[in-house]
């Protein structure tokens, strides 16, 4: 490897870039992307109007031109991507020019604002982009809870309220599907497997920019009247809705494409780019979790894309997939959506499993307990997630013969999920736990996901579901698993890995304040929701029974405290990254995993020499004598 490294730089282009600023702005960059995106938007709008004013008279009459908006979004996204430079490679290949792996990357901070094929840059881009859209979703949540302080609509009207609910849910679900894989898997999977790059670096960059375009499109729904369906987009309400619904459809279509490509890239990387000696049984558990998630992304997301394309067709050219009047069926949407939707929530949960099982061995100085059991748990969850989707349809009037089967399959999926817990507990057993901030978040994950998962088992029972479906009990269940599980593990990953990514330390005191305030306020916010559900409060309402005001007030105030804890985190980011700027060591946690064996900041080609692997990264702990009775042989 070092021989080819030596011939790397070309002397001619090593000179500094002395062109004037305005000259540097011309080219394939974010500015061009925005300009072409806006241009594409208006082009699509114009074409859409030409098509529909000649064929669809009702659109002229109602001023609801879905064809125009969908085309406008589509052309806008294409223009945006062309402007960034994503069309260069396909056009070059179309003309038969040889392939090249990497774009000529510019210097300095401008790399982060354009197409960059360095997986580390993409990881940091994802982190910031995801943070931005999470913030949007969180602000929506605060407004929802402000509205729910009163039992009648007071602050916003019902349409705006439903848009708040819809944007909150859709934004969070869509963005967090790539929430862990985007920043952390992109940055660290090549490092963990001893590779210099991802399998398809340009596609990796594409997934990021697709997600950014998607988030922006979803936020633009407010200019078109919002959408009333919540994140599930149920037909026929979907069909009835005004133009803002198309923003939702376009968002999820783009997110779906981004998911497929991200999953494909992850799987190809893990399968083909492992360092010599890195057999499957030596792979870090986080990489296994990424793999299990990627399988779901590649297979489930296309279903979503197809489902929403049918929705878009129903809305724009009046096909009859989901509309009963023309032979369609509302059940079709529910079935198709949840066939994607259930694997989707495991796409959210699995990376969380990977993070906590990856981190706790480092902080208890013991190997991961039950490595193979954990892998079978993750793969078991992955496989089974395709067989449970009709538990979302239990009271909807589906064929009653099917319901006991789906109850059984849903209950059974808790068994592989339980494997993760026993491996978590086994790793802690007789360990030497250091209570760092990432460790606290991992412990909180266990607490929260336990409650979330158990409430899921309660919901899976058909008879109890009759009481609890569509109520705040379900809200509590999925917020415990997604926020309590995924988001807590997401913060564990941030405090653990971001010092490596940016080379700067977080302030520990602010971090501890963040954790404790977040943990207490999170539980205070979502635990009462179980009670609200049992007491008969439906989801997605801004009007409710007056006797529930007290509990809702408590929940809202706790939610504001939860939001405040996020501000503490933001303060930590600003303080640590902009003011204090204390450099981070190369391996502050004393981890034996491969990504910590490279210097901070990580050099551009990751490794001087590709390492040869001879063991898994869990080589902690003092060996226990076989006669002492407690240990199983390594690799069990």
């Amino acid at each position, binding site marked *: 490897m070092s021989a080819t490294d030596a011939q790397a730089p070309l002397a001619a282009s090593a000179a500094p870039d002395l062109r004037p600023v305005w000259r540097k702005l011309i080219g394939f960059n974010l500015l061009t992307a925005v300009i072409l995106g806006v241009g594409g938007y208006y082009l699509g709008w114009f074409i859409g109007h030409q098509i529909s004013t000649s064929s669809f008279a009702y659109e002229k009459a109602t001023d609801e031109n879905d064809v125009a908006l969908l085309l406008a979004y589509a052309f806008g996204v294409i223009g945006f991507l062309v402007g960034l430079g994503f069309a260069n490679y396909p056009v070059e290949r179309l003309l038969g020019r040889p392939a090249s792996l990497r774009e000529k990357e510019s210097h300095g901070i401008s790399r982060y604002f354009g197409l960059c094929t360095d997986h580390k840059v993409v990881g940091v881009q994802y982190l910031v982009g995801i943070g931005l859209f999470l913030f949007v979703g969180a602000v929506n949540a605060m407004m929802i809870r402000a509205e729910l302080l009163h039992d009648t609509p007071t602050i916003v009207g019902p349409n705006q309220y439903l848009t708040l609910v819809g944007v909150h849910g859709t934004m969070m679900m869509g963005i967090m599907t790539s929430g862990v894989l985007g920043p952390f898997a992109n940055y660290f999977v090549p490092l963990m497997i001893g590779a210099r790059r991802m399998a398809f670096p340009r596609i990796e960059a594409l997934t990021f920019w697709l997600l950014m375009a998607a988030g922006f499109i979803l936020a633009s729904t407010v200019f078109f009247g919002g959408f009333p369906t919540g994140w599930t987009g149920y037909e026929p309400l979907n069909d009835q809705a005004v133009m803002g619904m198309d923003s939702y459809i376009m968002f999820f279509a783009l997110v779906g494409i981004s998911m497929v490509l991200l999953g494909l890239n992850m799987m190809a990387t893990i399968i083909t780019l492992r360092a010599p000696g890195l057999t499957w049984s030596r792979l870090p558990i986080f990489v296994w979790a990424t793999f299990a998630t990627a399988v779901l992304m590649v297979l489930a997301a296309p279903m979503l894309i197809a489902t929403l394309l049918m929705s878009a067709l129903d809305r724009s050219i009046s096909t009859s997939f989901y509309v009963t009047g023309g032979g369609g069926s509302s059940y079709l949407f529910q079935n198709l959506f949840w066939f994607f939707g259930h694997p989707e929530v495991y796409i959210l949960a699995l990376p969380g499993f990977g993070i906590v099982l990856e981190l706790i061995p480092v902080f208890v100085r013991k190997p991961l307990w039950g490595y193979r059991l954990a892998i079978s748990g993750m793969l078991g969850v992955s496989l089974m997630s395709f067989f449970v989707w009709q538990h979302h349809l239990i009271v909807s009037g589906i064929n009653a013969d099917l319901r006991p089967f789906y109850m059984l399959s849903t209950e059974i999926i808790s068994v592989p999920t339980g494997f993760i817990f026993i491996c978590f507990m086994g790793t802690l057993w*007789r360990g030497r736990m250091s209570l760092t901030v990432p460790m606290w978040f991992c412990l909180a994950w266990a607490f929260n996901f336990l409650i979330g998962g158990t409430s899921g088992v309660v919901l899976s029972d058909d008879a109890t579901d*009759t009481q609890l479906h569509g109520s705040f009990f379900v809200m509590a269940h999925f917020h415990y698993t997604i926020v309590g599980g995924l988001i807590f593990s997401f913060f564990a990953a941030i405090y653990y890995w971001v010092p490596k990514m940016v080379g700067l330390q977080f302030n520990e005191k602010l971090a501890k304040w963040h954790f404790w305030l977040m943990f207490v306020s999170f539980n205070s916010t979502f635990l009462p929701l179980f009670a609200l559900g049992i007491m008969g409060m439906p989801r997605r309402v801004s009007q409710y029974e007056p006797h529930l005001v007290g509990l809702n007030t408590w929940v809202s105030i706790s939610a504001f405290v939860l939001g405040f804890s996020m501000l503490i985190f933001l303060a930590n980011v600003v303080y640590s990254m902009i003011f204090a700027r204390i450099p981070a060591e190369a391996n502050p946690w004393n981890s034996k995993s491969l990504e910590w064996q490279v210097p901070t900041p990580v050099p551009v080609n990751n490794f001087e020499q590709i390492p040869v692997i001879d063991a898994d990264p869990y080589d902690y702990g003092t060996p226990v004598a076989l006669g002492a009775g407690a240990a199983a042989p390594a690799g069990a």
Partner: protein
Amino acid sequence: MSSSQAVGPGGLGGEPNHLRRFLTLWIVSSIIALPLVIIFIGPLLGPASGNSVETSGEITDIKVLVGVATPIILLVMTYLLYALMYFRQEKGSTLEGPAIRGNAKVQMLWIVITSCLVLSVAGYGTVVLESENGDGSGSGPNPLTSPSGPKIPVQVIAQQWLFTYRYPTYGGVETTSLVLPVGKEIEFQVTSLDVIHSFWAFQIGVKADANPGIDNIAYSKPTREMTFEVHCAELCGIWHGAMHNEARVVSDAAFESWIAKQQTMLAPATKVLPTYSKSYIPEPSRRAE
């Protein structure tokens, strides 16, 4: 790494038997907590009996599941607490824990116990679902099991944003208020005129989605005279939150007199209503052009 035993908090005298300690802690806390949960949290989950056959079945089911979940939740939570207390790194120390990678016996035990637990819970749930206790859920036009004996059909017609109730065996009169006789088996036939709604009367144990063009059947046998809430449980547009009404369970006699009054009062309206049918769909119309 030359020592053959991990040095634990027991010092050189050998480690305390963590397993025994922890199991004792867990079993004791479960024995204390379970009755507390049953006695104090149980009633909060809903009245076990007294409202309807279905409610009692569903609420008992919830209580059983919560009861089964309690020791499991305690297992993990007491373990986390135990670990926080006893499996700690002393300040400044860099000792490592024992290099234990697994324990085949523990893993097998966990797999077997969790699988058996889950299968029994699923079995119990199936029994409840297919018994009279579980038929409050919308089961589509052909429920697997239905209560024997005479049933009073009540059609629930959902539309944006109102429930109306049609009594086919009482002349097909359609009212905006729901009144039911106590002690009789009611067969709800839930359908929608536009988008998906859901007829949710949790106090009598019924939830059935209303889909356009579909007849979704759910049963309830109220056992107590009371007032109960009906909410729409599926997002149906901007006034979804306002789509609720009060309903009543009254004595037989009161019901008969009420329905007779409705029939006389609403006779002109009943004459112009479409004939009773399992679902009502507007004529297929071309929405484009």
